């Protein structure tokens, strides 16, 4: 049974990675997950300098999902390169680094800093709804997305994967802008912007008022967008949004994703990534599928 997939010229031993921000840099999940058994570990968004993130409360549960407004707290690229990358390498993991920034030069600085690091892909988060500057501003405007993609691509040593926001009228327009800017692959979806009100205290549950919605509740939107994007441009896709089981992963791949990220599911079940991988294998066995690549985008 072949589980290996190739995305943007890089080989991954299987299609399962972690959704940025839900898995730290892997260390926290090591008691539950063999990091080397994953296709890759996608790390929490990292910026050129440490970020404090938003005030608390930062997370809230919603029906079949959750909201977060962590605000990209991160240790900055220096500590990340010194501590997290070596640790992941030592554990035998392939690495996708998620990059965030407030301005184009922030992103470029991080990308340049990673040039000689043993990193497979750079996932560029231009779709975080929880920070005031940068982030989503690039992710909701095709021209801005094109420009920043081009700027990052010019400096990146590793293939880049622009991560798209679902909070747009037409996701295919954004996909094409990233493609035109030189992105090597696309990652979708980031979170849907949502809000929860505590009616007893008459307050927003999140200090940030709004947060990004994730989890199985949003899966139908994610599957739809992956399908649309896979038909609108030629780039390979890392699909995510609500994957809880192997069957969810298969669905995302049938819609057109070459790899899948498991996010919120980790909070529900710390072994979720492994369960997803096992579920994929079980599906392949049941239907006598020799090569996982057969199912990618298999329906039109």
């Amino acid at each position, binding site marked *: 049974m072949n589980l290996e997939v190739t995305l943007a010229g890089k080989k991954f031993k299987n299609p399962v990675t972690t959704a940025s*921000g*839900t*898995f*730290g840099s892997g260390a*926290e*999940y090591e*008691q*539950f997950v063999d990091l080397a058994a994953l296709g890759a570990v996608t790390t*929490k968004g990292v910026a050129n300098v*440490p*970020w*404090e*993130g938003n*005030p*608390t*409360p*930062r*997370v*809230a*549960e919603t*029906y*079949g*999902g*959750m909201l*977060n407004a*962590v605000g990209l*707290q*991160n*240790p*900055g690229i220096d*500590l990340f390169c010194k501590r997290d990358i070596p640790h992941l390498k030592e554990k035998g993991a392939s690495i996708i680094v998620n990059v965030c920034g407030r301005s184009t030069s922030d992103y470029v600085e991080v990308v340049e800093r990673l040039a000689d690091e043993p990193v497979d892909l750079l996932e560029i988060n231009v779709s975080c709804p929880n920070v005031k500057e940068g982030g989503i501003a690039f992710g909701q405007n095709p021209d801005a997305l094109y420009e920043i993609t081009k700027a990052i691509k010019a400096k990146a040593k590793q293939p880049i994967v622009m991560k798209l926001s679902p909070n747009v009228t037409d996701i295919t327009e954004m996909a094409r802008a990233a493609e035109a800017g030189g992105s090597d692959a696309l990652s979708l979806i980031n979170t849907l912007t949502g809000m929860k009100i505590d009616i007893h205290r008459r307050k927003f*549950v999140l200090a940030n008022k709004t947060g990004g919605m994730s*989890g*199985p509740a949003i899966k139908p939107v994610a599957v739809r967008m992956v399908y649309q994007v896979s038909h609108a441009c030629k780039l390979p896709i890392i699909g995510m949004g609500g994957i809880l089981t192997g069957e969810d992963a298969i669905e995302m791949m049938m819609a057109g994703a070459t790899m899948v990220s498991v996010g*919120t599911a*980790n*909070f*529900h*079940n*710390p*072994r979720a990534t492994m369960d997803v991988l096992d579920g994929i294998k079980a599906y392949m066995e049941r239907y006598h599928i020799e090569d996982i690549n057969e199912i990618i985008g298999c329906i039109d």
Partner: protein
Amino acid sequence: MEMIKETAKVVRQQQIDEGIFDMELSFPKGAALAKPGQFIAMYCNDKSKLLPRPISICGINPTEGTLRVVYRVAGEGTKEFSEMKAGDTLEVMGPLGNGFTMKNEKAIIIGGGIGIPPMLELAKQLDAEKTVVLGYRTSTFLKEEFEEVCDVKIATEDGSQGAKGTVIDAIEKYGVEGKVIYACGPMPMLKALAAYAEEHGMEAQISLEERMACGIGACLGCICKSKTKDHHTNVNNTRICKDGPVFDAKEVVFS
């Protein structure tokens, strides 16, 4: 820190006060590892609620392989737990967090409201001269169990029992003294205790609460502001679930 994720069985459950439930869970591997001040993540069986509920460990019985939790019905998740019966099962993960650092110095063990249960196992295990101070609204759940362990002082909001007011009122009224404060309870109480400890040159270990997602330090959902830069993210935030929930009060920036 080792932690376990497993299906646990409810061994016993009873209501001990209005809206307050006392549940014993069979979770042998968790019971073997747990320390006072740690907590467990309890998952709902109803799949519309995905995030685990953090609940402090109130009792540890490694011999029987059980952990005890005492919790208040606050919303849908704790409501679901409260409807479970002996024999029912649920997913749990734990023990989580750091727990209290037990010192061999004269101690004041303080619990306020639903922050009282986590102090029981500490009161039992702490090998030092100790007084327990409990702050209630009115009704005094678990009080008798504390009294089996050591001297207990009470504060109630309406003054119907013990001192009228807060735990600090009780400490002052009864002249309770010690070198180390161990405390869990609402934020205003902890803030007041931090000030009280500083004023009196005491150490204070306080157990904090915040909304959580992962429960194990990965999501950065549950931070509190810290005076020093955190080893994990290199900013003035520290993760309550992983580096806490118990902190030296001097390290915490209260908002």
